[in-house]
């Protein structure tokens, strides 16, 4: 086991955590402002696909990243309109956006490249070290930024007020809808960047459904992290660590059944949630509107 816990395992954990962390921080902002967001998966897919399409046509992965973030932000704007202005059921709206996020890339791949399965390969974002994309440190730096924003700034406290007690916030003159719009769209931007990390940070192409549930794992990390940026970071690292350990253990052939190893991240999640989740406290105003109907 001497060469098992290596620097390669550490970089694998960071790589695996990065897309989860981007999406989770986005989901955290949205939920702290009081809007449920199960559409992270769809936003990630939109971001991942559009980042590749943008890079393909604009020949610059940074412009592609921008395109991915904007496309996911547009998807999030739809979620915001439905959930905030039209007061749609937030779960149903999220499901609709997840379906859109899965379907639109397939439709467009068919149109642009006449193949529904995957895009051509494009240029990747630069690496800062072997196997470490430039987006990896960005994701981790965002954790204190989001924490500071929420806990130490005036807009952050207003976001919390909108999420905890929208009627009270509204009654003292806080524009709850405005803060919620901003947070939901920010969740789209962040989840979109998380998706773009998969397609042009880690890999160099988009394949259908390539996020494979990472948006939902990110949402689980938000809940498991008790809607707190540092807790969410810890949850993300736990999930990513279990995943990277599982990969490493399979490749090293440690003599544990592959089925058990594949189940390990989910088992760990179950154990952690049964042990910890009773302490969790969602924002009190989650899913509630500022005025009584």
């Amino acid at each position, binding site marked *: 086991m001497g060469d098992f816990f*290596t620097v*390669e395992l550490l970089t*694998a954990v960071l*790589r*695996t955590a990065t*897309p989860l962390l981007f999406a989770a921080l986005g989901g955290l902002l949205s939920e702290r402002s009081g809007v449920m967001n199960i559409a992270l998966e769809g936003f990630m897919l939109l971001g991942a696909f559009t980042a590749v399409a943008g890079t393909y046509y604009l020949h610059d992965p940074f412009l592609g990243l921008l395109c991915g973030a904007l496309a996911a932000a547009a998807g999030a704007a739809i979620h915001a309109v439905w959930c905030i202005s039209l007061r749609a059921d937030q779960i149903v709206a999220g499901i609709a956006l997840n379906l859109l996020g899965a379907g639109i890339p*397939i439709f467009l*791949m*068919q149109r642009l*490249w*006449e*193949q*529904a*399965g*995957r895009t051509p*390969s494009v240029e990747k974002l630069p690496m800062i070290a072997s*196997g470490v994309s430039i987006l990896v440190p960005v994701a981790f730096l965002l954790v204190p930024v989001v924490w500071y924003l929420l806990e130490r700034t005036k807009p952050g406290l207003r976001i919390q007020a909108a999420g905890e007690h929208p009627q009270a916030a509204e009654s003292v003159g806080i524009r709850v809808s405005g803060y919620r719009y901003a947070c939901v769209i920010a969740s789209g931007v962040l989840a979109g960047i998380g998706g773009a990390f*998969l397609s042009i940070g*880690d*890999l*160099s*192409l988009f*394949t*259908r*459904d*390539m996020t*494979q549930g990472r948006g939902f794992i990110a949402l689980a990390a938000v809940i498991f992290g008790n809607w707190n940026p540092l807790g969410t970071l810890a949850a993300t690292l736990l999930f990513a660590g279990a*995943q*990277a350990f599982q*990969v*490493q253990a*399979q*490749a*090293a*052939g440690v003599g544990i059944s*592959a089925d058990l190893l*594949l189940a390990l991240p989910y088992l760990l999640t179950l154990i952690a949630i049964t042990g910890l989740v009773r302490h969790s406290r969602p924002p009190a105003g989650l899913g509630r509107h500022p005025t009584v109907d």
Partner: protein
Amino acid sequence: MTIVPAGQLRLSRRRFSALAALAPLAAAMPVGGRIAMAQDSLVCTMVTDTVGLGDQNFNDLANNGGTDAARDFGITWRVVESQDASAYVPNLVAGAEQGDLTVAVGALLTDALAEVAPQFPDDWFLLIDSVVDQPNVQSVTFREQESAFLVGVAAGMFTKTGTIGIVGGMRIPPVIRYEVGFKAGVLAVRPDANFSIAYADSFTDPAKGKELAVAQFNQGADIVLPIAGLTGVGCYEAVKERNRLGEEWVIGADVTQDHLAPGFELCVARKGVDVAVYEGCRQLAEGTFEGGIHDLGLKESGVDFQDPNDRVPEEIKGYVRAYKQMILDGALVVPTTDEEFETFSQNLPPLATPIAAEATPAATPGA
């Protein structure tokens, strides 16, 4: 698990009956394209699975075979893409109503074809990679283990580190056949080889495929065989990013994907989906098409060892030819299950005597 397919089935039945109700109408129309085309030439319709054309694998191979057949036998070749699983039944029905042979590409269409085929007893169907036991269905399966064995021989001879990686999608029978055939081929020429075997539990997670391949290369593997669909794309991404040209390699499964990581693909275990479709069209054109199960291996040129970029040294190819000959002669039976592999690895056959290129021109790869 049971709720979703049942729902799809109900939906597809409804669609099917709607289509069936329209069928006499369409037939009664005087200038129906169906009638005009039936007079001109035989019509073959290929129905894709949901991945569709451009997968650079199954669907594209089948389309190549059909296009070649159309050119050679003067049949009309058409492709209908299935956007989702609920489109399988209506697409197969449309193919059967408007043509003479409907080609269902991939095991995903098995259930849909089992439903449609009995409704059209006078039409022919060709199913790739799965079996539907109906008199009007020709089911084609492949002995993937035989070509996997040959690329295993090449890998076992070629490896410098003695460690070889396998990245699987899910451990389902075709993948197991690939895995055990490959391992048997490696051990036949290199009994002390180590394997690093990892499964992603998904055929559509290239990021995980990349992580698995990276971990295997870090464990000292210098050759990785992905058997994992789109997950396997990640293995090509891994070898490309590590960029150790000439030191770390991947092996292609089914078809070459060297364009994903140019220069890094050692050789290919070819699966002749195109050959199967071409043959089906030929039989249709010659009036010899019939139902039944066709199991294609090296002997039928259904699978083969392929070195499209000539990267395997000639002396290793000599061994590949020798083992190919042994399989063709029946002197060597490649294992297909874990139990058979266990038996095989305990009584490894003696190292074969290499066969020079001139001796068996038929064995030249890339044929």
